[in-house]
């Protein structure tokens, strides 16, 4: 098909038009907005203010707090989701009878929207934890989501429960590609399970670790629905993450220019993380 051929453009036009109108143009326009002051009022024209928005970001406690909270959150969830997801994958690829059933169950939360799941867990943390705390006399279970620390761990628990099954699926794909002969050979040599895990399984699923790490990392950075429905950013905005801070700055405070500056910084962070992943994957592929 030649570029000059009209059919070439007919084939490409629908998605290209959608991409340009929905993503490319707003993205470029957004960079301009980040240099203006604008309330979102359609009748008003944005006023160009240079880098003022970016300067005020540096001293914006809400944004800096959201950024720091998101980083902490991302590191903790990435580690836990991958450890849990990998463990689940090991269980459902072993020779147990219930493995298909287990796989179905572990993956299930992943299909349901984060907003719905956040509401379900809000009920669990407030009512069930309180009831359990009363019954068992454990004070630690009382008042969850009412402090920044329990809000943080509440979000982590929800996210791990939702995402571990997804990451499990990725590990399963790699675990199943390990040739049986290799594991049998290790058995013949009298290797224990721990030795097999360390010397045979782990090195062979190493690419899966890279894929999963970055998938969970960018997932943790972009999280919004769960944040909104579980804690709503509270108490006192202490559990508000970047995505939510951008939405609030735009549509609750009506400072569009400032919100857009935050969004540009957000893009840069996410892009760096994703490009690092692509770089590592490419490097791995070459080595293989």
């Amino acid at each position, binding site marked *: *098909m030649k570029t000059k051929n009209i059919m070439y453009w007919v084939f490409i036009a629908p998605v290209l038009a959608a*991409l340009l109108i*929905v993503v490319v*143009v707003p993205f470029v326009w957004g960079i301009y907005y980040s240099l203006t002051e604008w309330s979102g009022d359609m009748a008003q024209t944005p006023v160009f203010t240079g880098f003022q928005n970016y300067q005020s970001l540096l001293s914006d406690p809400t944004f800096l707090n959201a950024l720091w909270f998101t980083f902490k959150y991302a590191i903790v969830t990435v580690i836990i989701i991958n450890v849990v997801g990998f463990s689940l994958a090991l269980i459902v690829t072993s020779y147990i009878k*219930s493995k298909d059933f287990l796989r179905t169950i572990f993956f299930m939360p992943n299909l349901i*929207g984060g907003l719905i*799941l956040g509401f379900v867990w809000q009920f669990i943390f407030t*009512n069930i934890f309180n009831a359990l705390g009363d019954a068992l006399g454990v004070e630690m279970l009382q008042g969850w989501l009412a402090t920044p620390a329990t809000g943080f761990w509440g979000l982590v628990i929800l996210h791990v429960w939702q995402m571990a099954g997804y990451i499990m699926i990725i590990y399963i794909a790699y675990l199943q590609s390990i040739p049986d002969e290799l594991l049998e050979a290790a058995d013949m040599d009298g290797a224990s399970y721990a030795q097999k895990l360390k010397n045979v399984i782990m090195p062979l699923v190493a690419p899966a670790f890279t894929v999963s790490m970055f998938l969970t990392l960018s997932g943790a950075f972009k999280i919004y629905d769960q944040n909104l429905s579980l804690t709503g950013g509270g108490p006192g905005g202490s559990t508000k993450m970047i995505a939510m801070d951008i939405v609030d700055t735009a549509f609750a405070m009506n400072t569009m220019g400032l919100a857009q500056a935050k*969004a540009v910084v957000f893009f840069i962070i996410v*892009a760096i993380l994703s490009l690092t992943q692509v770089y590592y994957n490419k490097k791995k592929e070459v080595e293989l």
Partner: protein
Amino acid sequence: MKKKKTTGRIVLEVIGILLALLWLSPFYIMLVNAFKTKREMFENTLAPPSEPVFQNFIQAFQELDFLRTFFNSFLITSLSIVCIVFFSAMAAYALSRNKSKVSGIIFFLFVASMLIPFQSVMIPLVKMFSELQSLNKWGLIFMYIGFGSGLSLFLYHGALKNIPISLDEAAKIDGATKWQTFWHVIFPLLRPIGITVAILNVIWIWNDFLLPSLVLGQGDETIPLKLFLFFGQYTKQWTLALAGLTISIIPVIIGYFIAQKHIIKGVSDGAVK
């Protein structure tokens, strides 16, 4: 040796079942409390209801205007999916069979778009569509095509590398037009990856909340959006809220059990590629 292995297996089996119960417990808690009166819920949160109450479900179903809300979600998701599956395949086909610089740039544009988080385009996007008087479900479907095309085109493009160009040439010799070649030869061969593309997009679009909340007006609400509004209204009436959550989850669970194999394969292929 053999005996040791059996014990190991049983232990693992028990651990697995316990974990599965733990994984299911949030659903159990939601379900049993949705069937209770408010009073019973406070007296005993963990036990099954002494006598199931259906009133919460009836009220939640009505308040959520569920048939209409479900239809909205269904319409928006299915139309978006049909367009994404079909148009991305067409574009990927044209790009993969034309190895020019222009194709390279266009392909790069699609791949690069995957890096952009929604919040980075949100404000100008909403302003633009509001000026075009398109903040409605048709505008939303168009937006989903834009956001969904990057990954979809990328997946199709990868699959097309494995479809030999000799097939195109054979069709051409038989006198097929470009369109006939695509529709009768190439598109049927793309079916496996097409299912993956459809599944990945369904999971995302069906559950999406933020974009519909900025775009859709009254009467057009999708399930997550309606549920959010409903929840805000009955924030302290947990039994009613839980019934609403249960109703909203049921279609997803049914879909999961019908298409489980495809879903797990699709998610796995989509992530690994």
